[in-house]
């Protein structure tokens, strides 16, 4: 296990593309999180001009809701696509450079190869989650009043939910990259599917007459998004009647993991049988 991770780290640590894309991910993440607070509350201010009893500002960066809000921003599909692209590049590189063949010839088993990539996905997901937790923690401390501080870790379980989101989404990317083996094609198809095709599909399936039993929520990318579906903005509830989630649901967490497990199973099956 540790040996495989050591090998993978050698492949990654001096790879510029990896650092550039990861840097972009964090840049967008930080910008997104900071801009969100600004734009949402200026929107509330605007609205308050027209109504007699003003809404209070949304306390995005306050404990304990900050855990839910930050993980929501961090798991928006437009942002998640960046680490997914990294994973696609890392797996398809093995095919375009034919280094997968070299690894096998040198004495890595096919199962170990799969395991090494899953370890990379796991560790990257874990590290991003940890960085997010640390960032959220300090952002929360800087903004929260004493009342909120008492409930500091109340919603930290959302960080676990975010880990599940990230890990599953990266496994989806790995799955596609492994099957297509071509970097550009995989990135194009994955992006197209996650950002356009599935949202359209979701919308069509959501038309009640067409699909009364609500299967739309089980679409793979949507199942990931659903884990932390909304930020905790009470205004959404009050104003639009949206049923804003207040905690993670076990089922929502299980669905993307089930998808990931099936995909890993298919990769295992293909890898064990196919010529390389």
């Amino acid at each position, binding site marked *: 296990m540790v040996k495989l991770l050591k090998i993978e780290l*050698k492949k990654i640590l001096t790879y510029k593309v990896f650092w550039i894309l990861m840097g972009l991910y964090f840049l967008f993440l930080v910008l997104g999180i900071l801009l969100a607070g600004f734009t949402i509350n200026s929107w509330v201010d605007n609205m308050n001009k027209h109504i007699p009893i003003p809404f209070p500002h949304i306390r995005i960066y306050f404990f304990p809701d900050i855990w839910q809000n930050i993980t929501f921003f961090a798991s928006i599909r437009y942002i998640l696509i960046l680490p997914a692209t990294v994973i696609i590049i890392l797996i398809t590189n093995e095919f375009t450079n034919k280094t997968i063949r*070299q690894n*096998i*010839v*040198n*004495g890595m088993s096919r199962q170990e190869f799969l395991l090494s990539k899953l370890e990379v996905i796991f560790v990257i997901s874990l590290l991003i989650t940890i960085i997010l937790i640390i960032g959220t923690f300090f952002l929360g401390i800087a903004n929260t009043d004493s009342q909120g501080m008492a409930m500091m870790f109340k919603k930290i379980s959302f960080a676990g939910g975010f880990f599940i989101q990230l890990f599953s989404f990266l496994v989806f990317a790995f799955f596609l990259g492994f099957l297509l083996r071509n970097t550009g094609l995989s990135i194009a198809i994955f992006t197209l599917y996650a950002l356009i095709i599935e949202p359209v599909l979701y919308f069509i399936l959501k038309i009640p007459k067409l699909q009364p039993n609500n299967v739309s929520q089980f679409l793979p990318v949507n199942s990931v998004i659903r884990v932390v579906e909304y930020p905790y903005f009470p205004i959404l509830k009050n104003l639009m009647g949206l049923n804003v989630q207040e905690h993670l649901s076990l089922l929502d967490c299980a669905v993307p993991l089930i998808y990931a497990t099936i995909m890993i199973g298919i990769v295992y099956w293909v890898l064990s*049988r196919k010529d390389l």
Partner: protein
Amino acid sequence: MEKVLSIQGISKKYGRIQAVNGLFIEINKGQVFGLLGPNGSGKTTTLSILLDLVRNDTGTFEWFGKSPSKESRKRIGSVIESPNFFPYLSAVKNLKIVADIKDKPYDDVEDVLQLTGLYDRRNDRFRTYSFGMKQRLAVASALLGNPDVLILDEPTNGLDPQGIAQMRNLIKMVAEKGTTIILASHLLDEVQKICTHVAVLSKGRKLFDGEVSDVLAVSELLEIASTDMVQLQKVVSLHPDFTSIVRSEDKWLVYFKSQIRPAEVNEFLFKQGIVLTHLSERKRTLEQHFLELLRDNS
């Protein structure tokens, strides 16, 4: 003799093409074993099966007397197809990955880089290497950690004359240490210069195998004629080194087992009362001989 590799009837089909067709080969420790055959004869597919890159349809094989595993592959160094490394990593980093996989110490990395003359460029990215250097890095990777077996697929393909000479010297040097070598090549000349044993492949089948000196022995060919061609045929077939005779227009083409001096044949025939009106020596190149072997058996 210690058995290194035993192939029992492996076959592989790609769609409708039968790439390997019931192949049996035994290779013992210390042999320099050549897989000789034209392009498409199944050499690379066979090596790919032996290294777990390609799944064989039928048949089995054993490395070191055991069924193949990742552990057996760690004892094998191989250069198959083009050199495959991470373009953005240096030679040292690429070889350290190999050392990690093979469970070999990093000290070996320096040794093989010295051996293949890449030491001065060891910290440059693989991307910046010339083709010859890439090929040498592949050899360095194969030699890492003193493998028990070295597998080489067309090792001199695409190299310049100097590179070819260096490569052959390197192979000989490794062979002298007692390393078993399996070398696939379509060049008869190469197999004859380097190998001790050979299996000739055609269309995925083994035509024959054995020691190089036996299999690839070049029979000598003389062109003779006399006034009585019938009597000449009878008498010449009594020669101890005679193998076969073919009529070519108004002459006989006579094949002999081993190298033979025309004068000696002339003397032999003269003693039997035959006076030759024509005698000339025909040299066949090794390549011609090889092609004939393939043609006779296809």
